[in-house]
């Protein structure tokens, strides 16, 4: 067979390059990474809490939380231990050392341990702010929205998940009820993404302003999102908490459009003209 002969003779470098293999550095332990070292607590019990989150080990995280609660306050367990672990995970993900499943397992570990701390606290910890998330009416594709919700929760936001195939009216009602710092909408298809300008217009007509209406998904593009007020094109799900934090810090949707790459802290090809 020609394929086998060609495989023996061909110089693959002249045909393609697997850049992911070429750029891969040596394997290091997560705790030895320079960016992780910056956020990783040095003292116990916080280091153990953070490490359990970094390794995505829910059982260990719960155990560490139970044991830590004998010595420190529930809020410290969350803020000085678990949240630091999640910060480290975000840093590892941003640089390509961690992958999506790692983040999910870490988020699960954090959620499980946080429940233990909140039980002791007697209430849920105060969230940074509320975000409402939905998938456009007529659209059943929700993996993007689920990622957005996960990243928001892991970063200390209250994420109100309206689900998929959500009628515009339900979105408006949820915005009225929760007064979110950010609204997110996702859609896979060109004809379902038209829900976004409809929602934006309906909000404006009712005199409601949301600091940021982050929109993204398969067929959604920046020029479309920037064709209506409040819309900010969200490129990656993990950018969502950074956009919400920018809104919390007082940035408007107009500011966020202009400063997107700076806000998310990395090169974003879709916003190359605004780097």
């Amino acid at each position: 067979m020609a394929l086998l002969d060609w495989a023996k003779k061909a110089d693959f470098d002249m045909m393609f390059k697997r850049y992911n293999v070429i750029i891969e550095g040596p394997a290091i332990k997560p705790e030895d990474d320079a960016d992780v070292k910056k956020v990783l607590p040095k003292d116990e019990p916080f280091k153990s809490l953070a490490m359990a989150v970094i390794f995505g080990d829910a059982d260990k995280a719960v155990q560490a939380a139970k044991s830590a609660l004998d010595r420190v306050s529930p809020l410290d367990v969350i803020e000085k231990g678990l949240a630091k672990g999640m910060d480290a995970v975000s840093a590892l993900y941003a640089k390509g050392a961690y992958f999506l499943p790692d983040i999910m397992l870490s988020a699960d570990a954090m959620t499980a341990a946080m429940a233990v701390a909140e039980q002791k606290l007697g209430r849920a910890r105060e969230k940074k702010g509320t975000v409402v998330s939905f998938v456009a009416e007529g659209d059943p594709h929700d993996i993007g929205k689920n990622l957005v919700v996960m990243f928001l929760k892991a970063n200390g936001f209250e994420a109100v998940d309206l689900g998929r195939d959500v009628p515009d009216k339900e979105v408006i009602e949820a915005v009225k009820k929760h007064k979110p710092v950010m609204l997110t909408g996702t859609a896979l298809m060109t004809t379902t993404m038209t829900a976004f300008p409809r929602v934006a217009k309906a909000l404006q007509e009712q005199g409601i302003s949301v600091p940021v209406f982050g929109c993204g998904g398969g067929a959604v593009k920046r020029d479309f999102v920037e064709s209506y007020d409040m819309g900010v094109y969200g490129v990656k799900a993990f950018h969502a908490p950074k956009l919400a934090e920018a809104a919390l810090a007082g940035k408007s949707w107009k500011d966020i459009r202009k400063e997107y790459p700076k806000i998310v802290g990395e090169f974003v090809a879709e916003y190359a003209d605004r780097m």
Partner: protein
Amino acid sequence: MGVRRYTKMAYKDPDEMVFGHAKFPVLEHWNVQFGAGYVVPEVKVAPEAGTERSKETLVKEMASIAEQAASRAVDIGLPAFMLEQEHVFQQTYHPDWGYACTLAQAEVLKKYYDEYGVRAALRQTVGDLRIEEKGGLRGSEYDNRIAETIEECCKAGASDIAAETMGGKSVLDYGVMRGDIKAILFGIGYLGSIDMEYFWTRAVNICSKYDTRPAGDTNCSGANTCMYVAGGLLGKDMSHTAAALARAISAARSLVAVECGATGPLKDCGYENTIIKAITGVPICQEGKNAVCAHADVMGNLTCQVVDCWSNESVFHREEMGGPTPAVWLQATGYEAALMNTAIQTGNAKTLRDLYTFTDMFRDPQGTLLAYPNAYRVGKAIVEYGKDIYLRARAAALEASKVMMEAYEAKLLQLTRFELDTLRKYTSILESLPMEAEIFRDQCMREYPRKIPTFDPKSYGL
């Protein structure tokens, strides 16, 4: 008809497979054949956003897409082409819209066929509107409307009906996000196969009453989700070896449509189609380098290898410098099909096939898996357990793993640590899974319903 499981391969040797030829060609009205010795170019265009606001505007949009494609076909001398229309929500949700839109396109294609003799096929791909947590996959309002719309499209003149069903997606998504290969196997291989049988038994029955072929289904919602999440070489959301395993599993699932009576040509975005063609001999549509308007993949040439209908996947309906997108992208697929047809006519088909394959065979593990000799191996693993939807999906993944490891060990395929680690880890998990479908199902049913709120076991008769 009942479900006919495949327990042997249609082709005795992978070298028998080549583009433009299928063991069981399909003839559709206006005299278009698929797999009968030539490759048919396909074009697919998504209606402009906003045209779905009324039936009238959408019908007009559909006619315009058909007119622009057909006129370019004549302008550049294409002997035949396929126009596929993937339904927007409204087109399937309102059966009368589905009818009117199909009729508008059928009238245009018939006019060109009558006037110029240009052979055209009209594919209608209904939307799978069903949502597990909103009435379930069986017997819900959404489900009933899909069936009605299929019938209306048949009545209006569709040449064939295709779909991208979503069965098993809630569990699959969970598996993708958490790197859980058992959930991926359960979602695509087990639940997906069950839902396919439900969906396609009905679709085949409806189509059989009309001059409309039940074409087939793609695991767009599963294996393509994995491919999309895996992304390019610098993607950091899913390992490309894991995406390849999901692809192998999806072949066992998408095969079910053919087992229910679907005839092909199988739908374009089913990258698993090479495996299914090897098993069944039905013609296939595929997409790759001329689908850059829709997405990036890492096997743009390879997917031409055994294609019968070459597609652009999807593009917005708008103007390019070269004209409206239905015209421009039919021209792109048309010239690629012309190259393949020239190779057939000059006796160079197998050489061109191998060039297409070799270009991408080691660019990425997904290409390694789908290179036709390897796809054939996965097909053989499937038919060895052909009667058991679970065991054959598991066998497909394990064979895919062997294919990738062999290429890696032969130093032909380079893998990152992440790709190699996930491949080894997932293979070990797959090997440890039970050899009885009932035990596997029970294990999964103890675990996933409590972890995944949107998973509705009743939708699968569980």
